[in-house]
């Protein structure tokens, strides 16, 4: 009961006029920053951090958390309307959000994303309220072998995303993972894979470079070439009645993905070093695996939008947990929030809940209020985002190219990366012509920097014995499930081939 009393105080604090105004501004700013390709919550939080010194610490963290929430909602907007995942957390949203937009159901995709995000955020906040200290101690038991097993599980779920051509899917995964190793060896510090000795590669290849190249340039070229210049833009009409009908359909067709994403996303988000991206990818994969209609995934399934969106919001709240209770940031954004807390004179760690209970419960209360504010503001702006899709394609296409290039530069500040975006875009166009699935490569470049160091640290712990992934109580079952999932499509294919012959 004590928890509910603290929570009521926290919500009351979040509803104070100053804090409420900060939540509304933060969510709106975050929504638009998140919707811009190349910019994400980390940019918004980093840029607006100095402003927070003008208000008390509790209001400051509420403001930053509201930006974080808004940006998580906003990530889906560019995935659906432009087909470019603006942040790694929204990659999986593109798989079904973009096909829905191309079918003239952009409003359904955006409403599904908003509602799923709301449920994901709320479920995670409830878990956070009830089990914060317990979950933090469980998360501490996740060492390198467990995190690597989790990454293996994430890869396993997206072996099935690449369609039937397994060699091409495996090529795509390996390619993405190799690209992630370009730059420096993070353990020895030695330069590694500086391709053709071009110095620009020393900085590595960021996820956003490959994602913008593949989705912003390659996919657009493919669409223009396939439709032979006669692109029929969708003509979605937005009315209050239409929005209500989409909301009803989103609930009916996206509830399963929403619940999978909400629960799985939170538990993956809680783990240090995992975060919202693996959470959203795994939720998409799991939702597809257990769906009765997996063939609808990738062709515009509301469940395929709901699962990653619920998961990335849920995981964002989950990622706050190790930050507050252990002082371990689970994502770049929470790392900046952690920095802010230290500057405000707060010490994250197990004693924070005791020593600064007003601050902590004010923050938890603001999660609830921010979530409600974010879903209402997001729904209010959906007609504006859908209106963008009513533009003639010959106006929309150059706008997408411009946003891709300028967003790519904003993310990396390097001309080398701009050229890489163009090269990846042209390469992706030709690979797509020959049915190479490119989503696994984009996902692999995101997860590679987590997977490699944890694999190497695990093998160092076991003196090179790979059985470490099987004998530890948490890593073992996860590894076995991952291996079964990897082998499942191959076995299905063999069985089908056997039947055909």
């Amino acid at each position, binding site marked *: 009961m004590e928890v509910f009393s603290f929570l009521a105080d926290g919500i009351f604090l979040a509803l104070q006029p100053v804090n409420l105004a900060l939540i509304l501004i933060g969510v709106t700013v975050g929504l638009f*920053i998140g919707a*811009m390709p190349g*910019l994400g919550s980390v*940019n918004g939080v980093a*840029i607006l951090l100095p402003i927070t010194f003008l208000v008390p610490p509790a209001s400051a963290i509420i403001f930053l958390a509201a930006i974080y929430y808004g940006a998580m909602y906003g990530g889906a907007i560019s995935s659906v309307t432009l087909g470019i995942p603006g942040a790694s957390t929204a990659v999986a949203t593109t798989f079904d959000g973009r096909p829905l937009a191309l079918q003239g159901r952009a409003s359904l995709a955006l409403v599904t994303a908003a509602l799923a995000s709301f449920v994901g955020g709320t479920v995670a906040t409830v878990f956070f309220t009830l089990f914060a200290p317990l979950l933090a101690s469980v998360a501490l038991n996740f060492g390198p072998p467990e995190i690597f097993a989790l990454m293996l599980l994430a890869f396993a779920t997206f072996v099935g995303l690449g369609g039937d*051509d397994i*060699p*091409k899917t*495996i*090529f795509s995964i*390996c*390619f993405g*993972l*190799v690209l992630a*190793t370009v730059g420096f*060896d993070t*353990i*020895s510090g*030695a330069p*590694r*894979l500086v*391709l053709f000795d071009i110095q620009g590669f020393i900085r590595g290849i960021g996820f956003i470079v490959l994602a913008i190249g593949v989705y912003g*340039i390659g996919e657009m*070229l493919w669409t*223009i*070439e396939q439709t*032979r*210049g006669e692109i029929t833009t969708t003509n979605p009409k937005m009315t209050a009645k239409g929005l209500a009908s989409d909301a009803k359909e989103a609930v009916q067709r996206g509830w399963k993905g929403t619940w999978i994403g909400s629960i799985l996303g939170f538990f993956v988000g809680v783990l240090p070093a995992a975060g919202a991206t693996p959470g959203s990818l795994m939720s998409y994969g799991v939702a597809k695996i257990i769906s009765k209609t997996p063939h609808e995934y990738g062709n515009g399934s509301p469940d395929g939008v709901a699962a990653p969106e619920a998961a990335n919001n849920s995981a964002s709240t989950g990622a706050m947990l190790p930050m507050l209770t252990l002082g371990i940031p689970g994502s770049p954004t929470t790392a900046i929030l952690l920095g802010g807390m230290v500057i405000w004179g707060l010490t994250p760690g197990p004693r924070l809940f005791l020593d600064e209970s007003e601050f902590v419960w004010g923050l938890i209360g603001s999660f609830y209020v921010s979530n409600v504010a974010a879903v209402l503001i997001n729904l209010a702006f959906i007609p504006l985002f859908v209106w963008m899709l009513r533009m003639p394609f*010959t*106006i929309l*296409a*150059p*706008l997408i*190219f*411009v946003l891709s*290039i*300028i967003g790519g*530069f*904003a993310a990396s*500040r390097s*001309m080398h990366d*701009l*050229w890489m*975006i*163009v090269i990846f*875009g*042209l390469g992706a*166009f*030709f*690979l797509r*012509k*020959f*049915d190479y699935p490119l989503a696994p490569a984009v996902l692999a470049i995101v997860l590679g920097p987590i997977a*490699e160091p944890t*694999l*190497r640290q695990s*093998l*160092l712990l076991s*003196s*090179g014995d790979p059985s470490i992934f099987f004998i530890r109580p948490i890593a073992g079952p996860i590894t076995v499930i991952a291996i079964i999932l990897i082998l499942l499509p191959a076995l299905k294919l063999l069985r089908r081939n056997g039947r055909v012959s």
Partner: protein
Amino acid sequence: MRQGEISLVGVLALFSIYLMWKSAELPIGYIPGQGPGGGFWPFWLSLGMLLSCVRIAWNWSRGKSPASASDQPLMDAFGWRTVMLVGGGVVGFVALVPIVSMYGAVCLFMLYYLRFLGRHSWPLTLGLALMLPFALFFFFEGAMQISMPQGLPFTQPFFDLMYDIIY
């Protein structure tokens, strides 16, 4: 399509071998006391890429993939023309950034695409091509405080004027 697929597999296989060779500049095996070497992860993944290429080529030889069973050309003249004009436009856009600044390149690219590819009217073309760079300038330089490339020195008076407005 059939010839294109095997040519692409050949290029990708060569690239995989290059990546294996490049990865081997760092140790690719297990170093006692230090764990797997720096080249371990990329080397074995590049080998995975190469083996995938071998399997794709095997499937091609048996006509298993749609492209390997197709006698159609990769693209017809219209397709090539479209890709050259649009893809070439994007390449030109990026090439212009260090010369006329990011905002200048946005303006010229919009002008090219809207007027010459989209066949839109001059008022619409000029309106969008001139307004978009200003909007992007205020968003990136003003609100987000992210500086974009400013091109050669001749663009400086424009930037001096714009910075006077936002600061």
